[in-house]
């Protein structure tokens, strides 16, 4: 008998056209934090989904705490003490925190579901682990960081001693990330084993005990943080060296492309989200919006792209007032939009990659003649996108929904960049994307700028904004509180402004 919490031997998983996992072997010990690294589509999510019983395997053996298992559903994995936080949260938005946490493992009082006891238990649990949440709050009213806590508490409630976390930090603010890393270390000290998937090498170096790197479904190496650094990890993942800093020349801004004046917009709950905001972006420059998520960035982007009603103020693009235009009309003015939620707003999951690659331009002459779709041209475009942006897929006929998270993102970026837009609005363009692809996407955004596009970049990654933007606009509570040139945008200063402080 071994001491391993998890021991996977030669696990394989096939999808139509891809071998997502190819004889993967892996172990996890008590109290160990194991980081799983790899490019987009390398097979990380697939591997952990097999361990969690969401996917069956096509070969290999899995031992949990020394016992051979064959899971057919998550319920069986949960019973063995495995918990998983998914890349996409699995929470019921209209239910409360307590209801979500106990769901599937509810206690009853007579025939009644005991909500009071659930709320009490959840509150106790959250205090015990330092993950404070309001047990009675509804999920949909909570920021993502809080929702993540709920996911973690859900596992703790089930007394999981194996935690699997698939890109838990992708949607967190830096502060929330730091807290989460501490929480994970706390678990490890209590003997819990953690499998941690991330694309952020800094996080790996900070807390992992061991790193396993996957490429094309195979394990290509195992290392320890003390034996390597960011460059070393990046090279292991991608198979070549990666430049982690953005290289670009000074901007050469020209005419005004986007002018936002005294804009006021409300959020979904009808509360003011963007307040009297004024901003300009010129051709040939990248303006980056730095800010903690939820300070009105989403509503600003939606207002500019025509997806959200504007209360007052104007948006002018290339001297045309677009305040009341439809998203499609705005697109026709030369505006490209990379939405922050690729699953919901960026792709039609059930459509093929080919069809998704003309979502924004399906009615242009090139792709539609007299109302008849030009399949040849569409396929040619899709092939070009997939090749140029390295979207890992068995074919362009595969449904977009079956792409790995990062490859979905790459497809959206490719579609929006390829046609040389006059204005590119990119929200979280590299969320969930591997380091190699981040480098590539950054270079493409800079190339678009150099070709004369105006770029508005919104990112929760401060480093991304500071590295890419020629001018940095700091957004706080719905307002732009400062606009700084790149050379004046110091990390600390911007961080203070983002938190609502002042420059001094």
């Amino acid at each position, binding site marked *: 008998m071994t001491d391993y919490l998890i021991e996977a031997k030669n696990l394989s998983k096939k999808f139509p056209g891809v071998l997502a996992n190819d004889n993967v072997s892996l172990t996890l010990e008590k109290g160990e934090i194991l980081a799983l690294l790899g490019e987009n589509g390398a097979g990380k999510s697939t591997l952990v989904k097999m361990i969690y019983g969401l996917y069956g395997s096509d070969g290999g053996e899995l031992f949990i705490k020394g016992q051979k298992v064959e899971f057919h*559903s998550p319920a069986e994995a949960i019973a063995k003490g495995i918990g998983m936080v*998914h890349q996409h*949260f699995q929470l*019921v938005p*209209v239910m409360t925190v307590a*209801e979500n946490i106990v*769901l599937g493992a509810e206690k009853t009082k007579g025939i009644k*579901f005991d909500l009071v006891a659930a709320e009490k238990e959840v509150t106790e649990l959250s205090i015990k682990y330092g993950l404070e949440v309001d047990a009675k709050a509804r999920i949909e009213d909570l920021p993502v960081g809080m929702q993540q806590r709920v996911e973690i508490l859900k596992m703790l409630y089930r007394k999981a001693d194996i935690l699997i976390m698939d890109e838990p930090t992708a949607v967190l603010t830096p502060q929330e990330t730091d807290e989460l890393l501490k929480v994970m270390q706390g678990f490890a000290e209590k003997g819990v084993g953690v499998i941690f998937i991330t694309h952020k090498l800094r996080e790996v170096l900070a807390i992992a005990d061991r790193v396993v790197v996957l490429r094309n479904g195979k394990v290509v190496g195992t290392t320890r943080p003390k034996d390597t650094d960011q460059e070393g990890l990046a090279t292991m993942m991608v198979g070549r060296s990666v430049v982690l800093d953005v290289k670009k020349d000074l901007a050469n801004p020209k005419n005004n492309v986007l002018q936002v004046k005294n804009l006021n917009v409300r959020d979904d709950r009808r509360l003011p989200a963007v307040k009297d905001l004024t901003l300009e972006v010129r051709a040939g420059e990248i303006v980056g919006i730095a800010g903690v998520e939820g300070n009105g960035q989403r509503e600003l982007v939606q207002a500019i792209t025509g997806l959200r009603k504007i209360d007052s103020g104007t948006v002018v693009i290339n001297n045309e007032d677009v305040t009341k235009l439809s998203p499609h009309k705005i697109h026709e003015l030369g505006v490209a939009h990379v939405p922050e939620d690729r699953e919901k707003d960026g792709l039609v999951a059930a459509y093929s990659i080919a069809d998704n690659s003309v979502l924004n331009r399906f009615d242009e002459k090139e792709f539609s003649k007299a109302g008849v779709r030009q399949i040849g041209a569409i396929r040619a475009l899709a092939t070009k996108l997939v090749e140029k942006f390295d979207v890992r897929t068995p074919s362009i006929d595969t449904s977009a929904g079956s792409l790995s998270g990062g490859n979905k993102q790459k497809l959206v970026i490719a579609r929006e960049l390829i046609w040389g837009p006059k204005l590119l609005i990119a929200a979280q363009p590299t969320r969930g994307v591997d380091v190699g692809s981040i480098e590539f996407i950054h270079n493409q955004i800079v190339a678009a700028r150099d070709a004369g596009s105006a770029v508005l970049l919104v990112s929760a990654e401060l480093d991304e904004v500071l590295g890419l933007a020629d001018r940095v606009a700091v957004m706080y509570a719905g307002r732009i509180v400062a606009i700084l040139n790149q050379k004046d945008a110091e990390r600390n200063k911007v961080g203070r402004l983002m938190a609502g402080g002042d420059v001094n």
Partner: protein
Amino acid sequence: MLDFIKDNRKPVITLGLVTVIAYVFYFLDEIKTTSVLVFGWGYAVPLVLAAMVGIIGERTGVVNIGIEGQMLMSAFASFFGSVITGNIYIGMLIGIAAGLIMGGFLAVAAVKWEMDQIIAGVVINIVAAGLTSFFYAPGKTLPQLVPVVSIPILSDIPLIGPVFFRNGIFALATLFIVLAVNFAIFKTRWGLRSRSVGEYPSAADAAGINVTRVRMMNVTLAGALAGCAGAFLALEAAGTFARGLTAGRGFLALAIMIFGAWNPLGALAAALFFGISTAIASQLQADEVINIPQQFVNLLPFVMTLIVLSVAVGRVRPPAAAGQPYTKEG
């Protein structure tokens, strides 16, 4: 009790208001008010039951537009079951069983085979209309009438007593069914799990809940309530069976479900509203206060459905996953 009122503010206020107004009229004209309310509640009963079928289905993520057909089959089965066996109680059970079978049919088609839910419902309606017309035999009568049961004490309350607590079995049971469904959906473990399946099935799956099983079970069991509605129509309300007996009530029930915001008590209030307004209209007609051709009166449910839907849709939020088959990946 207080919690109950707090949880269900809107329906409780509506029902309270209706009660107060009803008593005002009761003091003005005892006989007419009672008869309007008796008619109104009689009209509402099958709608309420059918709306429960819709609510249980959609709360679990399955849209059921086959309620009409499920009711029709049950009405047919309960009537001819009574005629053949010579016993209305056996007829009732046969009606409920028919509802269960029809529920099971939708469950298998829409959940197990992942057929489009709307198409599955349409198929049920067509099959039901076809079978009940084909096998219909005219000139049969019920072996006995459904006895009227009075609930002691409650039935002695003026107005409310004779309207709600002195009735046939199904009409009596309906009130309790609504309370039971309401309790089950919002207060039990079954309800919590069902709602999670109807809102976000992959989250339910990740929490270890068997989505397919929950949906199969709920859709099938809800069929029994469609069975009650059908048996009520044939045995208690009409006392006979005719082709197309349900006359669009299954669709009206869906409008009531939406009007009641997928909430059993809300649906009860909405159905009472429909029932009483129809009753008032026909009372005014009888008193020759207004004079509209009968055909238009018959149209009323459909017109009201349209109006209600145009008002309610967009204001209330349906269960997020209603209508979407759940396919596990991988």
